[in-house]
């Protein structure tokens, strides 16, 4: 084991914090320096991530690699354990890429009140929390990182947000904190009722099947509520539209692209393998909630007048496909869920970027005031159109595969609720149609038609260099994953199959 192997993951987790620490030493007036440090820190983190991706042994992607295992809180046998496998790697890389994009974007788009130092430092701490959550292999460590995500987001929305930022940030905080309470309780129950360890791998190898069924269901329920708030799962979603509407652009991007993924990741990584029998019992409800979210989110989108709020509700619908995939408990469904997560990460990030850029240019996101954007900023319209099309799942772009394979997996779930799931499949497919409806309606109202009120008397800039640098990698990935899905599936498939094996053992 080389020095690289042993420190690279810790470096990936803590480089952003280190960057934030350096920023703390500098006076806040030196805005350019703060921007540079934040960018360098996020790029350095990305380089560490790329190093991991290059050195990663793809032939055994199901096993955790570059593992770190140090003693941490001996009293309760909790250890500082990090490792990366085929399930973590894509999400870690997604986090790093999105953060770099946000830092590049922030270079010219700092939100009001302009104060680079705390804003960027919080963004970096957020990144640490996210990467740490995806790499942690100890439940308590996971919980700590999971909570680290929460505070920076609370402050970012509360301080740099738009209208109703106080309400939105508090709502966000209450929702996720209460969810975390259930989650922590479930972790403690796992510890005390199980083999007195927080080690995920160990727990997954010895599922808690010895426990009474009711207990298993209760623990799973606690985990589910904790994760469901983050996903979000209907009806625990109402923090999301408000938070997105109030949040500054890059916070929305981080929130939609990465933070929402924590919930679904937690289900796949923790809840399903540790409590496979409870997962089987919960599966029909998860599937139902997923499909309700698909249709409900799409219907709510039809009513929205604010671009960001619309995209937020569309996230609810897209995450519904993730839930549907997970609820099949099959290898295909779980793969679909992961694919949909990564795809949604890229696409929703782009949609929020575009919405932010439009707002910055014309000071409004009201769809009815926009219109005719193609005449004023044709390239921005092209980018927007590409993202909208990717978002509604055009085959050949990244958004398609996750949704299609969720639907496919729902035809043949591992558990016994086959008939019900076939109905869910049909409803999900109809939900995908509604997805096209609201997406196309948003696009045509914003980009086509006569030049609207917002653009009428303004000369707006088309896509700037800074925006291109931030966006092109994401757009390219959307296309690449759409044409060549193996780029992601080859990484994740073995890890997912491992989870699926545990689950199929439990359903028999």
């Amino acid at each position, binding site marked *: 084991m080389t020095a690289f192997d042993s420190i690279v993951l810790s470096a990936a987790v803590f480089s952003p914090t280190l960057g934030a620490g350096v920023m703390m030493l500098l006076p806040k007036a030196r805005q350019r320096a703060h921007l540079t440090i934040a960018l360098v820190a996020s790029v350095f983190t990305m380089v560490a991530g790329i190093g991991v991706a290059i050195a990663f042994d793809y032939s055994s992607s199901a096993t955790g690699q570059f593992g770190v295992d140090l003693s941490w809180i001996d009293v309760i046998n909790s250890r500082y354990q990090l490792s990366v496998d085929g399930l973590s790697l894509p999400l870690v890389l997604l986090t790093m890429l999105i953060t770099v994009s946000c830092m590049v974007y922030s270079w010219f788009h700092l939100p009001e009140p302009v104060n680079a130092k705390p804003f960027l430092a919080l963004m970096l701490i957020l990144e640490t929390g996210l990467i740490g959550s995806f790499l942690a292999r100890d439940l308590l460590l996971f919980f700590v990182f999971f909570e680290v995500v929460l505070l920076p987001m609370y402050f970012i929305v509360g301080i740099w947000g738009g209208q109703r930022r106080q309400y939105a940030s508090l709502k966000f905080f209450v929702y996720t904190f209460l969810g975390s309470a259930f989650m922590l*309780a479930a972790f403690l129950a796992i510890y005390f009722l199980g083999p007195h360890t927080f080690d995920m791998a160990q727990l997954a190898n010895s599922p808690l099947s010895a426990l009474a069924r009711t207990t298993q269901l209760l*623990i799973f329920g606690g985990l589910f509520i904790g994760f469901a708030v983050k996903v979000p799962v209907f009806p625990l979603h109402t923090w999301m539209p408000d938070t997105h509407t109030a949040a500054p652009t890059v916070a929305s991007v981080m929130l939609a692209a990465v933070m929402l993924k924590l919930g679904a990741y937690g289900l796949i990584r923790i809840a399903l393998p540790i409590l496979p029998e409870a997962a089987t019992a919960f599966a029909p409800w998860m599937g139902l909630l997923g499909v309700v979210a698909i249709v409900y989110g799409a219907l709510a989108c039809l*009513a929205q007048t604010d671009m960001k709020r619309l995209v937020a509700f569309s996230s609810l619908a897209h995450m519904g496909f993730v839930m549907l995939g997970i609820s099949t408990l099959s290898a295909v469904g779980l793969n679909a869920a992961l694919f949909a997560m990564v795809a949604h990460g890229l696409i929703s990030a782009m949609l929020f970027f575009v919405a932010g850029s439009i707002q910055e240019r014309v000071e409004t996101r009201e769809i009815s005031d926009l219109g005719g954007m193609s*005449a004023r900023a044709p390239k921005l319209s092209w980018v927007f159109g590409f993202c909208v099309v990717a978002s509604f799942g055009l085959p050949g772009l990244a958004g398609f595969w996750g949704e299609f394979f969720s639907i496919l997996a729902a035809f043949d779930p591992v558990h016994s609720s086959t008939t019900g799931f076939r109905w869910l499949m049909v409803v999900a497919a109809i939900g995908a*149609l509604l997805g096209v*409806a609201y997406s196309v309606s948003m696009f045509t109202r914003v980009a086509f038609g006569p030049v609207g009120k917002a653009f009428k008397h303004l000369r707006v800039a088309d896509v700037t260099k800074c925006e291109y640098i931030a966006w092109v990698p994401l757009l390219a990935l959307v296309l690449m994953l759409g044409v060549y*899905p193996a780029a992601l599936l080859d990484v994740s498939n073995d890890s997912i199959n491992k989870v699926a094996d545990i689950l199929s053992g439990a359903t028999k």
Partner: protein
Amino acid sequence: MLHNAWLIALAPSIAFIVILFFGKRLPQRGAEVGIGAMTTMLALSLWLAVDWVTSDRQQVVSQHRWFDVGDWVIRVGTLTDGLTVMMLVVVSLISLLVQIFSAEYMRADRRFTHFFAILTLFSAAMSSFVMSANTIQMAVGWEVMALCSFLLIGHWWEEPHNVRGAAKALLTTRLSDVGLFIGIVVLFFAGNKTFSIVDINSAATAGTISSGLLLAGATALFVAAIGKSAQFPLHTWLPDAMAGPTPMSALIHAATMVVAGVYLLARLFPVFDGAFDILPGGGTNPIAVIGAITIVISALLAFVQHDVKKVLSYSTVSQLGYMVMAIGVGAWTAAMFHLFAHAFFKALLFLGAGSVSHSVHGFDIEKDMGGLRKTMPTTHLTFAIGSAALVGVIPLCGFWSKEQIVATAGQNGYTFFQLVAILGTLLTAGYITRCYYKMFWGEHRGSSTPHESPKLITVPLVILAVLTVISGFLEAPVLGIHLFSDWVTPSYAPAVHHESGIGWPFLVEIVVALVGIFVTWKACEKRVGMRTLSERSAVLAGFNRLLINRYYLDALYEQVIVRNVIRLGIHVDRYVDRAAIDGVVNASAAAAKTSGAAAVAAQSGRVQTYANAMFTVTVLVALILVVAQ
């Protein structure tokens, strides 16, 4: 070449990227790249066709691993057989002619480069669609085509009317694509976990698929075909798609994309045959019924249109009905032959309409046209040939293909549908003669001074007219020629029975076509039309109103269905999301705040309040769990 058909889709794909990113800087603003790519496509397609015809004509599948998901390996590749080859030749030929035509027709357009980019992308999508070895690849091509259609219908997006047409086309076809995806999924499991077209077909032929699954899969896919190929009751998007520039209507909404649904039915014929018991015939099945309804209702609608493009679009719907019905009565080869023939004469008619509008600056056959035969001789002659082929006048291509549909329907015992096809011929003769007469005969009614179009426009017309005249002779059984069926008909499709001698359908088709033309001509000369007839009879007036309102289907869809879905969305947002769910959330937050304020009055920040609350809850829940154990 049989193993390398993918090169045919590669050429336009590269060209699309080149035009998109560099087109504006090129001397011809991207048109040269597009036309070059189309020429390459056509050359490669013809090479492929020669290889196919001279080979032993066994289907060639070449595929590679695409990705793994779970335990399944999904492959990507090409399926080359007579059907693929025929489609590729048609697509690349029409694409090339349309692009040449567009170079002149769109010359002054402000988004000229954009137009060529999307046309080229369309050709890439369509060609990859027809050579797909599996159903997922088909879905990719299918959806990208829909996107191109959307972008081209909305080409002049400044006008809300055009945008509405574009969105309507996309959403209507996407509605039916719910069927496409469900069908693909069902057949994936029905065919023992495969997307491969060959495997699904052989499973359907072997009868190893449970009848329930087969029926579900076939029904779902048929729904997809109904939308894409504009069949009743989802045909309403096609006439509104005419808002786009005329050359793209010729390519996408007449000759190629709209036949994708028919192609799907033909490609997976064993599935539909197995599910709906098409053969041996004699009964009835949804495919034939939908096709038959479409033939009649859309032909009737064509009578009350004033816009030449609308006449032609309803005509396209009607002719697509012929193809669908032909599949439904087991006339596989006839359906494909009609697809082939229709591509030429319908592209010809659309481009002819484009040539006329280029000259008279309008599409209204009443107000803008009349007497154009003198001023636009080439356009007139070619349009006349196209119209005659559409009716099915011997010996033009439309005659041979339609006659074969009628004859094969009879052979397979579908007598009723034979009669529908003949009725269709009569109606077709009526509406197209009316349209042709109003355009080219009588006196000029427009305010413009018409002139013949330049060469870039007329040359494609002449080429298409020549093809319209000669292509029918690829399959003329009475002359003992059956090249088309030898080359195209695969083993899984029903074999063609070449009857010796002249049957009654042959004679009836000739007579009905000529009678229809003659009667309409006389009516036009005496200025008798739907309007004058409805002045005489209340019943006819009501019928006329029904036609003018398009059977009220658009009203049903837009005023009732779409409006109520949006209203439902508004209710969900207002009452469920904000009032109900958020009501509970805000109420409990308020309650927590009140009780929390009393307990932790010393603390100032709200965050701390909730942190405390959280740990309290945590401890409580943990206790409950321990006790429960």
